[in-house]
């Protein structure tokens, strides 16, 4: 019971911090860039994908114990899950389609997953190399 409660608190804190970071990145990018491509969420999702590949590979292998499960709850599920967003990724794409910017929409929609998959793979391999 204590462990379930601890997990919920860690996921909540991680999710809250990660979401605040995402919001901060979005605001910072919005101040400097006023074009149509959603660079804020793109940057968040790709850096988050790299970090999950990197950290999950280290965590799951090195910290496979109770401390490890708490770290996964806080960092992987909470922080990185809250930092990155699938819903805004689809919403950004839908909004671009609504504005008839189909080319940018398609580039963002497909480019995000291609870059995200490569970033996560790079994280997995980098963690394997430095271990």
């Amino acid at each position: 019971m204590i462990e379930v409660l601890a997990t919920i608190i860690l996921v909540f804190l991680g999710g809250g911090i990660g979401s605040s970071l995402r919001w901060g990145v979005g605001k910072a990018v919005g101040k400097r860039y006023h074009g149509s491509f959603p660079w804020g969420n793109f940057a968040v999702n790709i850096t988050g994908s790299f970090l999950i590949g990197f950290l999950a590979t280290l965590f799951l292998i090195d910290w496979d114990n109770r401390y490890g499960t708490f770290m996964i709850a806080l960092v992987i599920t909470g922080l990185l899950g809250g930092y990155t967003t699938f819903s805004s990724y689809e919403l950004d794409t839908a909004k671009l389609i609504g504005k008839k910017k189909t080319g940018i929409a398609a580039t963002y929609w497909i480019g995000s997953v291609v870059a995200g998959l490569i970033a996560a793979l790079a994280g997995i391999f980098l963690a394997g190399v430095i271990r």
Partner: protein
Amino acid sequence: MKHDVWLVFAGGGIGAVVREALMLSVQTVGGFPFSIFFANVIAAFLIGLATGLVTRGSLGASGNLFFSTGVMGGMSTFSTFMHGTDQLLLESVDFTALIYLVISMIVGLILALGGIKLGSGRKAAN
């Protein structure tokens, strides 16, 4: 303005806990991560719905910040989506990886578009 970060923080925390609850209760079948799939596509629909309600004037800026940037952003995840797909590829479950990737992208987009239309009250043909 000063409270904005706390709206995002609280919403994001709640959303992440909802996703954790889904991860603990929804089973992975044949390697397909149904929990993350459902968390992502449901959040895509609801964020579209909220965006539609904002354009209609039924949802304010603070409410949208809490619900969309916070709860839906926290409930959905791009990192686990990418990492999960890579894991399936590395385990050579290529077909499941491809289905997971493409179905998530398409269903999420259709539901986001549908949510916007439903929320804004516009007819499907515009």
